[in-house]
Each structure stands twice: as structure tokens, then as C-alpha cells.
């Protein structure tokens, strides 16, 4: 038994999916949140049934990869039942897909979502009449207020018991051309709407959204508002309040936890190397990163607010004109914004792009957007070298990432892609007040992911870094970092970075381990300076490694040079080509080198 959830983008499929299966899949108020199918289980009449969530589609004859996933899935797997979810506030356009699904002959039930908003607007939808017109059960629900869900379960149960049978359906356009069939469907939709919908006035909700858009998209205000929003996000994330939380964690870890563990280990008479591994390897390796958990959490909460409010689509629209200069469209801006969180989902969300060229080019750019894992490095180094202007300096790095992406787009489009003007369509969801529960859930999922990463990837990487750092190339235990394996490897690579201002083996080592996970940049800098996690000592070590200018150059390089291993694996999968993956990595590295070179040497000429 298998049920598929299908419907237009941003109609609430994933909200309903989460509600029915108890899953915690990512939802947001913009079209294209879900880019691959997700499976869950629901319980009907005591039996378990597979429920498949699919990317939203406007038509069964779609252009983008993510939408083709849905079409192929519906046609190839022939599900036992389709739950077609409609955004009832956008009845006519949503019904277009419904008619196509209905023509496929697969049993279906229609779930009219967002009925709470429809009712608030003073509109009445006659579900009985709609059910008669289409020959399938119709139920009005609200995934937001969780109303109508019981009824939906009942109908699914009746389908499972074969109490409902579905007759074939024809729009009456058998003989017409493919194009004209669209016109036919909308004719039918108009007559259905006339029969089923009463008092469809301009809704209060959409009026409010229109008023907000008058300001948000205003010719003169839009860009300042955009940068103001970005700036608020960065000031809050790097503000002193969050900073104090970090200090608290740092104190708990290094002031209380680490000494306690050390004395406990000494008390039970653990071997010297075990004490070293734990107190000089694992605790500083993971601890140095955990300190930045508050910043990362705040960044994710703020990004969730952006996503849930409806601003994402507006930002994409504003950027469309800029992106069209590179043969891209505003749709490419969405993966970029996602990239501020994590590069992996950003690469996957490139599937929403309409053409293969657009998708590849955007994928090549997403690595330049500064992901949250790079944030600990900025926080650490700007905290040491640019204490006064910390927010501004970090902001400049994020901006640099975007500027580099733009220049690269221009360059790549001239040389490799030769994109023509693509079509661009972006639906504008109404503004909605973000739901606190959703924000917390989403942020918790990210924080959990971060903690899991700390307990797995970062743990293993820290142990390896510690081992390479505690042994000489002849596998003799050493306490002198300069004699360690890292020193040898780092020194071999360091000359590449001399012209960039940070030709030390410590910096080189950090950059190598940073490929495993970006957080390792900070962990490694802490480990190889043998500070045992002590913040004051770490600050001292950093000032001896970097001048302020070199530190900035290092951050620029670390921002751009290579994505982490998970992102590289995702890239390989999404490109489905080794050549493209290697090409992108080589491009990233070269760009990073050139940019850091310019930053460092221009800075030096200016006497910084």
C-alpha cells in the first residue's frame, strides 16, 4: 500500500506530511523547499501505510529536475492513492494540477489546505459541489491549525477498505493540441470555481501582503531594507549577548569540565597518552567549536524567520535583474541564501532551477557563500584581531563571498556556459507570521545536526589531528609540535601560502583539516598551538601566527578555497560528473588564492 502527497509548490504538502507521519521534515513559506521525495509511515485502521512526500509541481509536464521527480514518481510507481493538496486561497491555479492528476485515473482525494485563511477572508468553498464536479472526495483542512485531519484519515481508511471507487475523468479535450489543452482546463476550472466558490473577494490577507510589498519592493527602499535585514542578522548573531553565552560555555568547558576530567583521569591512574588524547586532543578539538554553538543557533533561528515569513521569494525577485546579467535568474538566489546555513542543502536546492546550464553554474557558485560552519573561524579571529569592528568585518566577509560569486558567474558565463536569457517565474507567497513551534523545531534539528557532527566527524578528525601532532614522522611521541607529522606536511604546503601572508605550517594544516569539516579550521588552530583549549593562550598563539592583515587574508581564503567533504560528495552526486566536480574544486581553489593574494598585497601596499 502506498499513498503519494502531490500538489503545487508551497501548498503545504510537507506540513501535512509532518502532521500525518510525525516526521520533522523542513518546511518553509516559499516554493521549492522540498527537492526530493521523502517517505514516512501513517497508521490507518491499525495498519501501517507508506506515505510519500514529493516536491511541489505546477503541472505534470514540468521543466525543472525537482518537479520531474514528482511526475516520474506518480507515473512509474502508480500509487494506490494520491492525496492532492491544494492551497485553497489560490484555488484556480491549484486546480490545474488537480485536473491533470484526475485525468491520470489514479485514485485520489483532494485536501483543500489553508481553509482557515479562506474563511478569514470571508470566502466559502462548497466542498460537496467540488467533490461532485470532480468525482473524488474533497476535505477542507488546515495543516497549520490541524483541523480536518480526522476527516482526511476517515477518507483514507475508506479508500483502503475499497469503499470508494473512482470513475475515469476527461476534461473534454481529447482531440486538441497539447498547448490548447491548458486553455481547456482553465475553462473548466472557471466553471467549477463559479459553482463552488461564494463571495470570492480580495482577501484581507493578500491586501496586507500587497501593502507590505509596496514597502519591501519599493524602488528606493528595497535594497536598503535587504541590506538592513542582513546586517541585523549579523549584528544579532555576533552581538555581545550571544557572545556572553559563548563565554559561559567556554568557562564551563575549559574552566570546570576539562580540569575535572584531567584530575579524574589522574585519580584512576590512566596512562599518560590517554590523558593527553583527552585533555589535549578531544576536549580542545570539540570544545573550541562547541563554544560557537550560540552563534550558530541564533543564525539558524533568524534564517528560519526569513524562510517562514515569505521574504525569501521577495529577495529572489529583487536579485533577478542582477542575476540576469549572468544568464541566471532570481531563482538562483535561493540556493545562495540556503548556502548561508549549509552548502549541502544549497547544492540540492539547485534542482529548482529551470535549465541544466543554470543549475550547473549556480552549483559552482554556492561554495562561495559562507556557510555556518565557517562562522567559528570568523568569530575567533575577528574577536582577536578586530574586536572593535567585529560585526562589520564578518559582514565584509559574507559580502565578499557574494561579490566573488557574482564576478565568477560573469566570468564563467562568458567562457563556459554562454547562458541565454531564461524564463523566470517566481510565485509570491503571502507574508505569514512565523510559527514559534516551527522555528524552534527547525533550529533544534540544525543544532542537533551540529552536535552529532561534533560527536562524530569532529571527534574522529580531532583524534587524527592530535595523533599527527603528537607523533614525529618516525612515530615517536613528542611534545614539540614543530617536530610533529603536521609540521612536516604543513611545511611542505606552506610555501603556496607565503604570498598570501600566512605561510606557516599551522595555517596550512588547518586548511587541510578544514576540508573534513569547516569547524576543524578552528579546532586545528587550537590543537596545533598546544593551548589545551585555554582561550587566553589561544589568543596569544594566534597573534604570533597572524598579523591582522594576514588573519583577514586567511579568513578570505578559508571562506572561498574548498567546500567540506560532505559538500564535495553532494556536488559529485548532483553534477553526476567527476569532471565537473574536479573542475569546480580547482576553480574554487584558484579563485581563493587570487582573492587572498589581492587582499594581502593591496593591504600591504596601503601600509596595513
Amino acid at each position: 500500500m502506498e499513498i503519494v502527497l502531490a500538489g503545487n509548490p508551497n501548498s503545504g504538502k510537507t506540513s501535512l506530511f509532518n502532521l500525518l507521519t510525525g516526521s520533522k521534515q523542513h518546511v518553509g513559506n516559499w516554493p521549492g523547499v522540498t527537492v526530493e521525495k521523502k517517505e514516512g509511515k501513517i497508521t490507518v485502521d491499525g495498519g501501517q501505510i507508506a506515505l510519500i512526500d514529493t516536491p511541489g509541481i505546477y503541472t505534470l509536464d514540468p521543466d525543472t529536475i525537482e518537479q520531474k521527480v514528482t511526475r516520474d514518481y506518480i507515473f512509474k510507481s502508480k500509487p494506490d492513492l494520491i492525496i492532492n493538496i491544494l492551497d485553497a486561497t489560490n484555488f484556480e491555479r491549484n486546480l490545474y494540477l488537480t485536473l491533470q492528476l484526475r485525468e491520470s485515473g489514479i485514485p485520489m482525494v483532494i485536501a483543500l489546505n489553508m481553509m482557515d485563511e479562506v474563511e478569514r477572508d470571508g470566502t466559502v468553498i462548497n466542498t460537496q459541489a467540488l467533490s461532485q464536479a470532480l468525482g473524488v472526495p474533497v476535505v477542507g483542512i488546515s495543516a497549520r491549525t490541524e483541523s480536518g485531519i480526522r476527516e482526511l484519515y476517515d477518507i483514507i481508511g475508506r479508500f483502503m477498505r475499497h469503499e470508494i471507487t473512482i470513475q475515469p475523468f476527461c476534461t473534454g479535450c481529447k482531440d486538441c493540441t497539447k498547448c490548447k489543452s491548458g486553455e481547456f482546463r482553465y475553462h473548466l476550472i472557471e466553471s467549477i470555481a463559479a459553482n463552488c466558490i461564494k463571495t470570492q473577494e480580495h482577501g484581507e490577507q493578500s491586501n496586507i501582503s500587497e501593502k507590505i510589498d509596496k514597502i519591501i519592493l519599493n524602488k528606493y527602499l528595497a535594497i536598503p531594507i535587504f541590506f538592513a535585514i542582513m546586517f541585523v542578522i549579523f549584528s544579532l548573531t555576533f552581538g555581545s549577548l550571544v557572545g556572553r553565552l559563548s563565554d559561559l560555555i567556554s568557562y564551563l568547558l575549559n574552566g570546570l569540565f576539562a580540569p575535572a576530567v584531567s584530575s579524574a583521569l589522574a585519580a584512576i591512574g590512566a596512562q599518560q597518552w590517554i590523558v593527553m588524547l583527552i585533555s589535549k586532543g578531544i576536549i580542545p578539538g570539540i570544545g573550541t567549536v562547541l563554544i560557537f554553538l550560540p552563534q550558530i543557533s541564533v543564525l539558524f533561528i533568524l534564517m528560519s524567520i526569513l524562510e517562514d515569513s515569505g521574504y525569501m521569494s521577495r529577495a529572489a525577485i529583487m536579485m533577478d535583474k542582477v542575476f540576469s546579467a549572468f544568464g541566471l535568474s532570481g531563482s538562483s538566489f535561493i540556493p545562495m541564501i540556503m548556502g548561508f546555513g549549509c552548502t549541502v542543502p544549497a547544492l540540492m536546492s539547485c534542482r529548482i532551477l529551470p535549465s541544466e546550464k543554470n543549475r550547473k553554474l549556480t552549483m559552482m557558485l554556492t561554495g562561495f557563500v559562507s556557510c555556518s560552519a565557517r562562522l567559528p573561524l570568523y568569530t575567533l579571529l575577528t574577536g582577536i584581531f578586530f574586536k572593535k569592528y567585529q560585526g562589520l568585518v564578518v559582514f565584509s566577509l559574507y559580502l565578499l563571498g557574494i561579490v566573488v560569486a557574482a564576478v565568477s558567474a560573469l566570468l564563467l558565463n562568458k567562457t563556459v556556459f554562454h547562458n541565454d536569457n531564461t524564463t523566470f517565474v517566481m510565485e509570491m507567497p503571502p507574508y505569514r507570521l512565523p510559527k514559534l513551534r516551527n522555528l524552534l523545531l527547525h533550529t533544534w534539528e540544525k543544532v542537533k545536526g551540529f552536535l552529532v557532527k561534533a560527536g562524530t566527524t569532529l571527534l574522529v578528525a580531532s583524534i587524527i589531528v592530535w595523533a599527527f601532532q603528537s607523533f614525529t614522522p618516525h612515530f615517536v611521541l613528542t611534545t614539540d609540535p614543530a617536530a610533529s607529522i603536521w609540521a612536516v606536511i604543513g611545511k611542505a604546503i606552506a610555501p603556496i601560502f607565503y604570498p598570501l601572508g600566512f605561510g606557516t605550517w599551522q595555517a596550512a594544516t588547518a586548511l587541510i583539516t578544514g576540508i573534513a569539516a569547516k569547524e576543524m579550521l578552528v579546532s586545528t588552530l587550537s590543537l596545533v598551538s598546544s593551548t589545551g583549549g585555554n582561550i587566553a593562550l589561544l589568543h596569544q598563539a594566534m597573534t604570533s601566527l597572524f598579523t591582522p592583515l594576514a588573519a583577514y587574508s586567511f579568513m578570505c581564503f578559508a571562506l572561498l578555497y574548498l567546500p567540506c567533504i560532505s559538500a564535495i560528495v553532494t556536488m559529485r552526486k548532483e553534477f553526476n560528473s567527476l569532471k565537473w566536480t574536479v573542475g569546480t574544486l580547482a576553480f574554487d581553489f584558484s579563485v581563493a588564492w587570487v582573492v587572498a593574494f589581492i587582499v594581502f598585497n593591496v593591504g600591504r601596499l596601503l601600509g596595513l
Partner: protein
Amino acid sequence: MKNFFQPGNLLKVKAVNYDHQASKMLIDMGFTPDTLISVKNSAPFGEPLIIKIRNYTLALRKNDLLALDVELVSH
């Protein structure tokens, strides 16, 4: 051709040019003959345009909208 796609204009679709690359997308999104479309405003750089049709809002480029043959209903 006169440019009817100006903010504040209420337009009516007369026909869709099926040879235009954007035609299929426009039909899917509900731009069929006799439909009213209202041009709300434009994005900061003049493009894309914010269009209201069939009681929902979307953004489109002028180039794509040129697949539509429209008549002016009101300013």
C-alpha cells in the same frame, strides 16, 4: 507594440503566442485568453514585474510576458 505592462495597469489576455518559449509556462500558471491580469508593481531595478492573476501573485519578466497578446482594460 505599445507596452501595456506598466504598474497600475489592468489587462486582459487576448491570445497566447505558442511559438514563444515562455508560452507553456504562462498557460500552466493560468494566463489563458480572457483572463484579467493586474500589474501591481515592479522590482527595484524595473524588473521583474509583480503580477496578480486568478487571485494570486507572481513575478515575471517582461520578455516572457511578451508571449501574451493583451488589451488594456484600465489604468
